[in-house]
C-alpha cells in the first residue's frame, strides 16, 4: 500500500492533522509581514508589547536612580537620631516617620536601596557565573564530567540555603562581600541546571555539528557557538536571580546577620520588629520597598521571557 507522502508535492504537512495545518496556515499568513525585521528589534518589540514589563522597567530604572542619587540629595544620616522615636509618618517633616531610636525611616530606605541593589546585582552575577560555568561544562562534555558536576549540583541543592548562608555570614563576618558570596554559593544550582539542559539541547543541533565538523575547538564551540544560543533562558533566570538575591539579603539582614554599620531594608524591619504594635509603619515601608523592587524585577523577567523565548513568540 502506498501513500501520498512519497509524492513530489511534498507540502511537508503530510504528518499534520488537518486542524493543525489549518491553524498553521492562519499563523503563517500573518508572520510573513513581520519576518523581515531584525531579531533584536523583534525582541524589543515583544518586550514593549508586555505593558506590565515596560512599566516595571521604567520603575526599576527609577529605583536604580534613587539608589544612586537619593542619598546625595536627601542628606539625613540614617544612623542619626533626628527626632523623637516613633514619630508617625509626616510628622515634623519626616515623610515616613522615625523608628524606635528616632532615626529617619526615609533616609534608611534611600541608603538601603544602594545596599539591596548592590548585593542583589553582584550576587546574581556570581550565581550566573558559577551556574553557567558548571552547567556549560556538564552539558558540553557529558560523560563522567557531567555526572560529577550534576552530583555536585544536587549536593548544593540539598543544603538548606538560608541556614547555610547564615552560618557562612556568622563565621566569616557580616561584610557585604561575604554576604554576597554566601548568597551566590547557595543559589547557583538552578542556573546550572538550566544551562546544562540548554547545552544538551543545542549541542545536538545541526549547526553545532557543522561547526564541529569544520574543526572548531571545544572552547570555540562552547563560548562562540553554543553559549550565545543558550543565553535567552539564562538571561531571564538572571533577572529573576537579582530579585531572589535581594529577598535573600533582606532575610539575612532581617535576622541581624548583616554589617551593623550599613543600613539595609531587611535590617530596618528586623530591628523594628519588637515595636510593631506601636509603629507598624516602621516595618511596612521598608517591606514595601523590597516588595516593589522584586516585583519590578519579576515583571521585567516575564517581559524578557516573552521577548527572548521564540516558542512563546509564535503564540
Amino acid at each position: 500500500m502506498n501513500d501520498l507522502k512519497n509524492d513530489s508535492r511534498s507540502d511537508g504537512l503530510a504528518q499534520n492533522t488537518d486542524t493543525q495545518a489549518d491553524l498553521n496556515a492562519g499563523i503563517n499568513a500573518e508572520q510573513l509581514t513581520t519576518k523581515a525585521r531584525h531579531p533584536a528589534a523583534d525582541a524589543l518589540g515583544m518586550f514593549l508589547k508586555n505593558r506590565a514589563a515596560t512599566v516595571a522597567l521604567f520603575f526599576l530604572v527609577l529605583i536604580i536612580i534613587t539608589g544612586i542619587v537619593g542619598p546625595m540629595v536627601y542628606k539625613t544620616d540614617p544612623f542619626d537620631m533626628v527626632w523623637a522615636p516613633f514619630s508617625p509618618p509626616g510628622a515634623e517633616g519626616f515623610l515616613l516617620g522615625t523608628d524606635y531610636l528616632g532615626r529617619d525611616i526615609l533616609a534608611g530606605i534611600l541608603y538601603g536601596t544602594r545596599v539591596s541593589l548592590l548585593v542583589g546585582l553582584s550576587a546574581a552575577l556570581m550565581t550566573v557565573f558559577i551556574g553557567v560555568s558548571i552547567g556549560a561544562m556538564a552539558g558540553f562534555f557529558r560523560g563522567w564530567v557531567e555526572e560529577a558536576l550534576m552530583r555536585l549540583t544536587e549536593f548544593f541543592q540539598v543544603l538548606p540555603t538560608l541556614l547555610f548562608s547564615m552560618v557562612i555570614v556568622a563565621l566569616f563576618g557580616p561584610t557585604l562581600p561575604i554576604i554576597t558570596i554566601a548568597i551566590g554559593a547557595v543559589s547557583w544550582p538552578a542556573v546550572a541546571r538550566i544551562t546544562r539542559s540548554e547545552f544538551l539541547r543545542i549541542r545536538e543541533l545541526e549547526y553545532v555539528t557543522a561547526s564541529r565538523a569544520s574543526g572548531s575547538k571545544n572552547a570555540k564551540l562552547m563560548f562562540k557557538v553554543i553559549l550565545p544560543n543558550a543565553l535567552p533562558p539564562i538571561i531571564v533566570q538572571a533577572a529573576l536571580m537579582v530579585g531572589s538575591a535581594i529577598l535573600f539579603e533582606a532575610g539575612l539582614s532581617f535576622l541581624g546577620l548583616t554589617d551593623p554599620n550599613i543600613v539595609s531594608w531587611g535590617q530596618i524591619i528586623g530591628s523594628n520588629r519588637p515595636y510593631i504594635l506601636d509603629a507598624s509603619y516602621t516595618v511596612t515601608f521598608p517591606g514595601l520597598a523590597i516588595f516593589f523592587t522584586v516585583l519590578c524585577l519579576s515583571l521585567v523577567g516575564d517581559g524578557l521571557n516573552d521577548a527572548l523565548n521564540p516558542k512563546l513568540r509564535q503564540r
Partner: protein
Amino acid sequence: MSALLSVENLRIELDTRAGVAPVIDDLSFSLNAGETLSFVGESGCGKSMTALAIMGLLPEKIGRVASGSILFNGEDITKASDERLREIRGNDISMIFQEPMTSLNPVFTIGEQVAEVLRRHQKLGRKAAWSTAVELLNSVRIPDAARRAKSYPHQLSGGQRQRVMIAMALACKPRILIADEPTTALDVTIQAQIFDLLEDLQAQTGSAIIMITHDMGVVAEIAERMIVMYAGRMVEHGNVDDVLSRPRHPYTKGLIGCVPHLMATLTDSRPELTEISGIVPGLNEFGQNACLFASRCNLVGQQCVQARPKEKQFENTQLSACWHAESV
C-alpha cells in the same frame, strides 16, 4: 431507507488571525448503516474538521458550526446539549485518531482506559468493565491481553496503541466509527494489519465507518463510497469504483496519478507518475466565489475564477464540482 447520518449544507467557521475562514463550506452527504465512506484530500482540506464536527468536538471558542445540520438518526447534533453529546460520543459515534503515540493517556493503564468507556456508557461495574475490556483487547489481537491490560501506553508499540484505540472506540459497538488517518503514523506492514482488523470488527459490530485519509490506496482497499475534499469543499463524490476508474474532477485525477501502485493495478499498464503542481490555498482564500483549485488546474478557464462550480450529477453515482467535469 433513511440515512444513519445525514449532513446538510454544513458550514464550519474557524477564527484565524486573518479573520473568519469557512474551513467547511457547504458540505452535504449521507452515511448509511454499516457502509464505509472515505474522505480523501490533502492536509488542511477540512476532512478532520468534518469529523470533529460530527463528534461535537470542534476547537472550543475558535471553531463553530455556522449553518447547516448534522442529523444522526434524525437528531440534529449541532443543536444537541452538551449532556446529550456526551451520551452519543463513545457510545453511538466514536473516533480513532491519527497519532496513536499521543492519543492514549500516559498515566492510566490501557485496560482502565478501555474499561472507562464501558463504565460510562454500558453502566458496567468495575469488575465487569475490566473483564470486558480484556476481552476487547483480545479481540483487537493484543497478545496476552489479560496481562497487557495492566500495561501503560509507553510500554506498547505504535501499532499496539492504535489497536487499543480501536478497542476503546468499538467498546460500545457504535453505529458510526470515525477513523482519522488511523495508520498514517504507523509502519506500512502494520497499516495492512490495522485495516484487516477494522474490516473484521466492522463485520462483527455492523458499525458504519468514516475513513479519513489522504491515501488513495487506502480508499481503494477499504471504502465503498468516497468524498474528495479540497480547501473545505467537496469536489467529487461517488462510489469508489466509479470515481477511481473515471474521475470527474481534475483534482481527483491528480490524486490518483500520484499513486503508482494504484494505477498499475487499475490499468495493468505503467503510466507515468504525475504530480499536482502548486500549493493548497491558504485559509484566507477559503470561501471565495471561484473554483479554489483553479490555480493548480490545467483545465482552468475564465469561468473557473469567476464563480464557484455547480455540482454536476452523472449517470452513475458520481457528483463533481467542476465547470469542466465532462471533459476531465
